[in-house]
């Protein structure tokens, strides 16, 4: 547990000092919001009707952009070998990496939400808390998969190009239930209507985290 904390602290400190990934992902979020705004003909569809889906797609693309580089900085001068050789078990390293990625991407997701609310003129909806929970659970499941497959793809010649091919087919449940819940909440529907969505998102995140923690050792051995 303490080892997980150390990895999280190390990664967040690194991000805080360089602000490399957050700057790129934050700019991406705002710019994507701008482009999406111009891609919609407001005389055909109301921007509010498609906002939930676009919010999730922005989070997914933005997440791949940043999470693909999870192992990049450490990979450059072989520092990751040091992390792997430390006595921390591999599943602790994975969970540490996933949690620091989660903190980063959740911050970006909140920014995405804010940007879309501003640009698309959205109301906060029926329950801000349930909205934050839906985003959090979806981001958690996504981060678990993306962290595991970032380790896989950074071991291949194709690098980050490989990441979407591996992650996208698995994201269908997250997008369906996440965007479904977000859309309903933004439209002011009662929380009870999305309780089922939230439960599936939570179960998805748990299974993805457990799978990542269990399989990470097979990705980074040697």
């Amino acid at each position, binding site marked *: 547990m303490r080892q997980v904390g150390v990895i999280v602290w190390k990664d967040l400190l690194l991000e805080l000092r360089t602000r490399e990934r957050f700057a790129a992902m934050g700019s991406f979020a705002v710019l994507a919001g701008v482009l999406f705004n111009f891609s919609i003909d407001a005389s055909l569809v109301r921007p509010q009707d498609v906002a939930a889906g676009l919010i999730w797609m922005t989070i997914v693309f933005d997440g791949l952009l940043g999470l693909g580089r999870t192992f990049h900085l450490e990979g450059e001068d072989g520092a990751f070998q040091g992390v792997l050789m430390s006595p921390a078990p591999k599943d602790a390293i994975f969970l540490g990496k996933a949690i620091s990625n989660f903190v980063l991407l959740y911050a970006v997701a909140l920014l995405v939400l804010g940007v879309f609310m501003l640009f698309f003129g959205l109301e906060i909806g029926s329950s801000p808390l349930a909205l934050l929970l839906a985003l959090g659970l979806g981001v958690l499941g996504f981060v678990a*998969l993306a962290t*595991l*497959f970032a380790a*896989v*793809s950074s*071991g*291949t*010649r*194709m690098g980050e190009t*490989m990441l979407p*091919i*591996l992650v*996208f*087919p*698995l994201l*269908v*449940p997250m997008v*369906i*239930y996440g965007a479904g819940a977000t859309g309903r909440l933004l439209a002011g529907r009662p929380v009870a209507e999305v309780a089922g969505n939230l439960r*599936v998102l939570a*179960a*998805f995140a748990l*299974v*993805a985290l457990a*799978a990542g923690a269990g*399989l990470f050792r*097979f*990705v980074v*051995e*040697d």
Partner: protein
Amino acid sequence: MSITGVRRVGTFLAVVGLLGLGVVYWLSFFWVSTEASQGIVQRIFYVHPPAAWTAFFAFGIAALTSGMYLWLRDERLDWAALSAAEGGMVFGTIMLITGPLWGRIAWGTYWTWEPRLTLTLLLWFIFLGYFMVRRSTENPEQGKRFSAVVAIVGALLIPFIHLSVVWFRSLHPEPVVVRPDGPLLPGDMLTLLLTSLAVFLVLFLGLFMLRYTLEGIRADLQVRARRAAA
């Protein structure tokens, strides 16, 4: 079983499967009765579900043997996973081609987000990732591990994908074979469907074993080449 033994059985099954395929085609064109409401297009039914079931079966074997490979690290398990995954891709492709062909006539559209069609498409892409990962590592052993991880994660998340695409929309014909109150199909159609399924499975097993043999021979060649070089 030795590699030669696997090859013999594989060849036998593949030949039986191919001959059986000829019989299935003949029966579905000339023997089985025409379905009343859909007419002639319904005959694709003797190819489409058997291909889908065989593909699911093959992907299941691939995920299972991938898990066992990571656990036991026996090369032969990796050969089996690779061979089953390739078989699954072939039968999955057949399913994905025949489905829309039938859908164009019966539903009026080539593609719908029908759950089982969507699920197969996603499985197909998960295993495309399986092959891409495998081929783009410097070290083949690493590729085997990576692809096994892809197959296992895919297998673990398939229930969620299935649940979500069903929840999203359903338009597929209701099951007519596996039902609590027994099959709904007329006798000759059911007979032909089950025959076709058996043929597809035999053909898959034959191809699977031949593909496995090929991997075995390849590994053997590498060992010999290394010995000759030393």
